């Protein structure tokens, strides 16, 4: 987990005169004025909660991944050791699933975070109608996944959808069976829908983080004649970086388990071109009724998440050293 070394992270109020960089090591060594148990008291309720409702099932799923278990009889587990994992990795289709998942995750995260940042910066300025604009931007996020999938399906309807008509008007023919049934375009359509729904979330979080950018510093830098980009890099970005990091990590983990949009729009088709890990998992669990295989796929997904998190820590450390 990226340790926050720098600055006022999301939501601190602006008018604090202290410099953005706070080396906290010295302060952290001091114990609380209260008892040693204070931290534990504070986190106990939440920790117990999480332990109960998430950790225990997680461990159960881990154990399940080594069994053959039917959805229809989940208490009867036949131990099969690494068979599920072997089956997964020896399946040629799985490699394609992994690749599709990777593409989906990378592009949706970069798209959502990048565009979300731009939108947040845009909405951070002063202009008439600012409050309304900030509310309206949340609309894609407020709509339920099923509704989002359905309106995009309708807009992409091969015979009557407005987007299909638009594409044809600009000379792109998605083929007779439309974008969602086009092996080359389907993933793009699903990504577009995903990013459309995610940008509001990112911009809401980053917007709240931007509130803690010390205005005096920004103004001071500008008065000094620093260009827009320099101001952003030196002041704003330092404040935003931890939050952007957190958002990126969360988005990545979520991308690996995002399911509704793809399932409703293409179900992993056509020809498996939009099949991600979680689609495979769902299919295993509820169509083939194999909870053991599904759990194994879930564990693979978790492993990938971990790799990404650890990898991003290294990247963040490296980037941190530069500035």
């Amino acid at each position: 987990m990226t340790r926050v070394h720098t600055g006022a992270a999301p939501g601190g109020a602006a008018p604090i005169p202290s410099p953005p960089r706070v080396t906290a090591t010295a302060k952290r060594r001091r114990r609380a004025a209260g008892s040693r148990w204070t931290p534990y008291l504070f986190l106990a309720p939440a920790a117990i909660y999480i332990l109960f409702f998430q950790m225990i099932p997680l461990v159960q799923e881990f154990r399940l991944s080594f069994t053959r278990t039917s959805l229809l009889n989940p208490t009867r587990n036949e131990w099969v050791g690494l068979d599920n994992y072997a089956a997964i990795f020896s399946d040629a289709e799985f490699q394609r699933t992994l690749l599709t998942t990777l593409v989906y995750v990378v592009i949706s995260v970069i798209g959502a975070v990048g565009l979300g940042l731009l939108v947040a910066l845009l909405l951070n300025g002063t202009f008439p109608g600012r409050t309304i604009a900030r509310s309206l931007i949340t609309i894609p996020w407020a709509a339920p996944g099923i509704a989002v999938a359905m309106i995009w399906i309708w807009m992409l309807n091969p015979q009557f959808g407005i987007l299909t008509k638009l594409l044809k008007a600009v000379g792109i023919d998605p083929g007779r069976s439309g974008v969602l049934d086009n092996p080359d375009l389907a993933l793009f359509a699903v990504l577009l829908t995903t990013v459309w729904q995610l940008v509001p979330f990112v911009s809401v979080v980053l917007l709240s983080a931007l509130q803690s950018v010390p205005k005096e510093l920004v103004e001071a830098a500008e008065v000094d004649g620093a260009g827009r980009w320099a101001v952003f890099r030196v002041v704003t970005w330092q404040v935003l970086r931890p939050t952007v990091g957190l958002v990126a990590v969360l988005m990545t983990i979520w991308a690996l388990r995002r399911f509704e949009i793809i399932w409703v729009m293409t179900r992993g088709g056509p020809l498996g071109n939009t099949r991600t890990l979680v689609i495979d998992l769902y299919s295993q669990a509820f169509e083939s009724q194999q909870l053991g295989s599904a759990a194994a796929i879930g564990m693979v997904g978790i492993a990938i998440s971990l790799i990404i998190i650890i990898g991003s820590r290294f990247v963040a450390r490296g980037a941190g050293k530069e500035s």
Partner: protein
Amino acid sequence: MRLGVSARIVAVLIVLGLATFPIYWMFVTALTPDAQLYSSGVTLFPDLTRLSVFAEVLQNGELVRWLINSFIVAAGTTVLSIGLGIPLAYALSRYRFRGQLVLVLALLFTQMLPEALLVVPLFALFGQFDLLNTLQGLILANTAFALPVVALILKGAIDGVPRELDEAVRVDGGRPITVLGRIIIPLIAPAISAAAVIAFFSAWNEFVFAVTFVFDKTIQPATVGLAGFIGEQNVSTQSIMAASLLFTLPAIIFYMFVQRYVVSGMTSGAVKG
């Protein structure tokens, strides 16, 4: 970011246009009669004479109840997540203790399991505690996902509050809880509101737990009700679009409420720097 005001407005309008067009399209589609819907022509503007479609969907009677159920689950999740999340975030930020890294990792772990996998173990767990077919059960299930996110976001926010402010209160003999209430919370108000909105929306839109843990039509949240419009025999596109819009509206109203009242309410007692 210095951008001319008019240039900014244009950019904002473009962005809003892209963000809201599909929703606008839902509105247009809900109001378009079949004959025009299934034609190669384009109807860009809604036919306002057909607003009765919304009335019909509402008269379905149950939609309002579903929305109330969804609201209860979402509000409950938000309150519980924030209530448990603030102390957790404070502890993670301000203290060094054993198992801290493990806890943070655990928080991240909770986000990695897809609902499809959690459904079966949680169903068994809830069954044992008589939580099935209850809104409380859904609140608990949703909080399990929202709480870690809330905690992570708030931890980052608290990290940004300089410890000198904590010390100021401690030196005066204040206990950690005072620090929390008087200093931290007002200063991280925007983050709390962001976290609250995140918790609310995630519970508002949740489907898998809602459909599996609830048996009674009277308790089902609106996401399940919406799916019910998709029938085996028939799908009325107009009704689904209308119902979807009615479902999206309360979430947006909640967001506006949080932005306007919660933030100002919290910061009104804040330390002005």
